[in-house]
């Protein structure tokens, strides 16, 4: 199972800060994961597709076409607001 982390307003959209997801064989990339999550919850799919959203895979910055698997930790980050 992949571990999915949602931060800030994306956690509100997902209704949770973390989710464990078994990635099907059609879910090869972050983009595929967004599509899969959007099938169950269109609003979440839309929130995750905003161009301001950034991705982290196993604690490293990743692009939307990054390969992911069931051992990975995948984080979705909305625009930050520290300080």
């Amino acid at each position, binding site marked *: 199972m992949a571990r999915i982390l949602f931060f*800030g307003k994306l956690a509100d959209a997902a209704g949770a800060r973390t989710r464990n997801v078994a990635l099907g064989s059609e879910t090869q990339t972050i983009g595929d994961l967004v599509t899969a999550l959007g099938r169950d919850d269109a609003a979440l799919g839309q929130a995750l597709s905003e161009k301001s959203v950034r991705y*982290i895979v196993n604690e490293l910055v990743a692009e939307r076409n990054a390969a992911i698997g069931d051992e990975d930790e995948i984080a979705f*980050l*909305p625009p930050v*607001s*520290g*300080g």
Partner: protein
Amino acid sequence: MIRVSADPFDPGAELSVFETRAGAAGAVVSFLGKVRESAADKTVSGLYLEHYPGVTERSIAEIEEQARKRWAIDDALIIHRVGELRPGEPIVMVCVAAAHRREAFEAADFLMDYLKTEAMFWKKEIREDGEAWIEPRDADYKDAARWKEKGRKG
């Protein structure tokens, strides 16, 4: 030194420890950010801040490294609160020690611009009209862009 914590901190005590450790470094600049009492004309009753433990700290360490390469600084301290905060509470503090004041001012300014626009924190304002996740203001992005345009100043 970088500290991200849900525990409150005491800005005066932090400056005291930092400037003592800095010894005879000629210049120490500090920035302290506190939770405001209002935003967009609404009373703010509190803030909730979250971060990505481990990842946030490492990315701040990287930007501190950038600052150390860019300016001749002797020491830096970055403290950032997470969790629940109330108006008037310290939320962020940056201290920089350097031989000369220009370096200390610019590096502290740079670190704050980074913390506002790049560091992985997410902040929710609890206001009288409800809750709202905050995003950087245009002025914050404009401030951060200054450092891409210019090199190190003399």
